């Protein structure tokens, strides 16, 4: 089967769209990763054996195949990327040159990469965390006690100086654990049981947004600060995850429950950790939550627009007026997508 990958450049002045540098390939792409950055420069698209990197103008800057199985790939805003494959982590530069490789004693659970540090979480007990300095590939290591046996995400800030990991399950309290390269900075209990599935960070890594999921619902969405302050942003009566979109400043948050049609909007006062209701948006069809809680709802970095794929459309919706500014027709049912903003020149 042949697939066409089509980067689209959308002009938010007149909402015109332009296909840029589309290509055809025989294999559907599995996942898309975007740097956790104020102004993301690259997208990384990967299958189990191939990585493609696009710049924000839709140019393909790297296409590389690998002779091992890719379990996960992440990219930083310099285009350096990290790959997890079983017990081994690989770090490459944007040209595809292998810079560093480490084979651990046990399977790796999750990885992430910032501008200065990469993070590796092993699947052992207690959980080993390795923080790799990208300037000289020295590392620091510490352990974190986590409850449950779940597939906890680890996410780092734009620089990689700080990261968070989550803990908890349906019979144990949910925690958000802030970390620096030297160890645990703060472990914050969310006060409810559940296994957090979605994890977003402000670029400087001070505030995390997450959703502990219980066996019988509801899903609560939290904002948690690295000094221990926390705020509940809302509660959704569903038994699955929530998708969370956050502006760069962390002051605008939109979230929606899996397979739901209502997007909840919240404003967050970061200093006071106070939440105010900014209304709701109703989609004509349920959100495409099957893709991933990481990517089924998105927002432009300035928080002006929400991007929601549902039914046969991807919609760009104005935060202030709830107006649908742009509808992009999807050619297949579930479509992987991510948004990069391009500065006007």
């Amino acid at each position, binding site marked *: 089967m042949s697939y066409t990958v089509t980067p689209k450049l959308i002009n938010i002045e007149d909402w015109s769209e332009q296909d840029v540098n589309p290509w055809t390939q025989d294999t559907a792409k599995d996942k898309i990763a975007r740097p956790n950055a104020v102004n993301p420069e690259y997208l990384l698209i990967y299958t189990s054996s191939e990585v493609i990197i696009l710049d924000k103008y839709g140019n393909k800057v790297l296409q590389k195949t690998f002779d*091992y199985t890719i379990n996960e790939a992440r990219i930083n805003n310099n285009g350096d990327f990290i790959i997890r494959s079983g017990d*081994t982590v690989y770090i490459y530069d944007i040209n595809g*040159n*292998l*810079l*560093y*490789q*480490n*084979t*651990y*004693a*046990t*399977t790796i659970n999750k990885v992430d990469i910032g501008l200065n540090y990469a993070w590796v979480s092993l*699947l*052992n*007990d*207690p959980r*080993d965390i390795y923080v790799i300095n990208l300037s000289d*590939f020295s590392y620091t*290591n510490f*352990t974190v006690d986590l409850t*449950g*046996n*779940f*597939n906890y*995400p680890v996410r780092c800030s734009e620089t990689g100086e700080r990261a968070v990991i989550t803990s908890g*399950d*349906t019979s144990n309290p949910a925690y958000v654990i802030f970390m620096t390269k030297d160890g645990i900075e703060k472990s914050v209990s969310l006060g409810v049981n559940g*296994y957090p*599935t979605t994890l977003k960070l402000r670029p400087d890594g001070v505030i995390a947004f997450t959703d502990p*999921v219980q066996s019988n619902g509801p899903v609560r969405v939290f904002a948690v600060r690295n000094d221990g302050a926390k705020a509940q942003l809302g509660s959704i009566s569903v038994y*699955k*995850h929530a998708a969370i979109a956050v502006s760069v400043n962390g002051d605008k948050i939109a979230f929606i429950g*899996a397979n739901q049609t209502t997007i909840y909007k919240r404003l967050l006062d970061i200093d006071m950790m106070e939440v105010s209701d900014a209304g709701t948006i109703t989609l004509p069809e349920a959100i495409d939550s099957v893709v*991933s*809680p*990481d990517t089924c709802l998105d927002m432009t970095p300035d928080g002006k627009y929400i991007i929601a794929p549902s039914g046969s459309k991807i919609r760009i919706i104005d935060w202030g007026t709830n107006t649908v500014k742009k509808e992009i027709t999807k050619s297949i049912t579930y479509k992987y997508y991510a948004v990069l903003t391009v500065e006007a020149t």
Partner: protein
Amino acid sequence: MSVEEKEYEINIPHREAVFCYVTENTSLSREDLDNIKRLLGEKYAMLEQFPLLKVSILWVTEKLTEDELKQLSEKYGFYEP
């Protein structure tokens, strides 16, 4: 990403990287890595490869025996720095 609860075998505790051995071989294959892990068992902590520096570092939890080091030296060029 699947959001269903998953069960994993988490039976390998933290292994402290205490001693290291080096080699200029930075193209160790998957088969080589599996052989090294099998040979060292619980002594194995991790193996870093730095292609640009043309050096690999094997980290272990306790000092290798003469026989273990001899095998690693003959097959992969490891030596005590």
